[in-house]
């Protein structure tokens, strides 16, 4: 099962990314765990300077913007 982490402090952009990630998972019909990470230390351990960021199985796919659902699907399928 894929693990998708949404890195962010809980601002509207982070919430939007979480929502799109869940939509992407649902659209693909795959099993994936979507986890929101708001702890700054954990975020900085990924080397991320700007949020929101999307992490798929430990690899940061995007930081500082909210990608489209189909882009997210490319990363998680």
């Amino acid at each position, binding site marked *: 099962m894929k693990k998708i982490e949404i890195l*962010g*402090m809980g*601002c509207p*952009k*982070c919430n939007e990314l979480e929502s799109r990630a869940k939509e992407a998972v649902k659209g693909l019909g795959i099993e994936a765990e979507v986890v929101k990470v708001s702890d*700054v230390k954990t*975020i900085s351990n*990924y*080397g*991320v*300077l*700007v*949020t*929101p*960021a999307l*992490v798929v199985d430990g*690899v*940061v*796919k*995007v*930081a*500082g*913007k909210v990608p489209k659902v189909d882009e997210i699907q490319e990363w998680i399928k």
Partner: protein
Amino acid sequence: MEEKCLCEPTEILIFPCSGGSNVGQIANQAGMTLTQEGFGNLFCLAGIGGHVSGMIESTKAGKIIGAIDGCPVACAKKTLEPAGFNIDEYVQVTDLGIEKNHDFNLNPSEVKKVTDPIASRIHRRKGVLSFKGKLYPSFSEGRI
């Protein structure tokens, strides 16, 4: 300390080579000083060289990339460009008349020689970016 949301764009990223010589460490100190003065954010060149995904993606989100190399070996340039990043502002410490050696007692006036041109170039970009930091900080001698 209050935690600041990280969704504010980091517009100017500064990558010093941070190499093992006086000029490498002057580059590093210059990066720190520029960050402290609000001209940008010091960022991790090793993370780019090490293919750390979070650092690479965060760098893509930056609008201006500044690189400070200590010497003509140009490690910062040679790390950033192959990773696909264009350097917008570049300074090489030895080009400023500072000789490379291994004396790590850094001279504040030499650090200032590096920070001043970068600061003024970033200042000139103020019309391009809606820069939220201090626009006219003054570098004081001996600050480091």
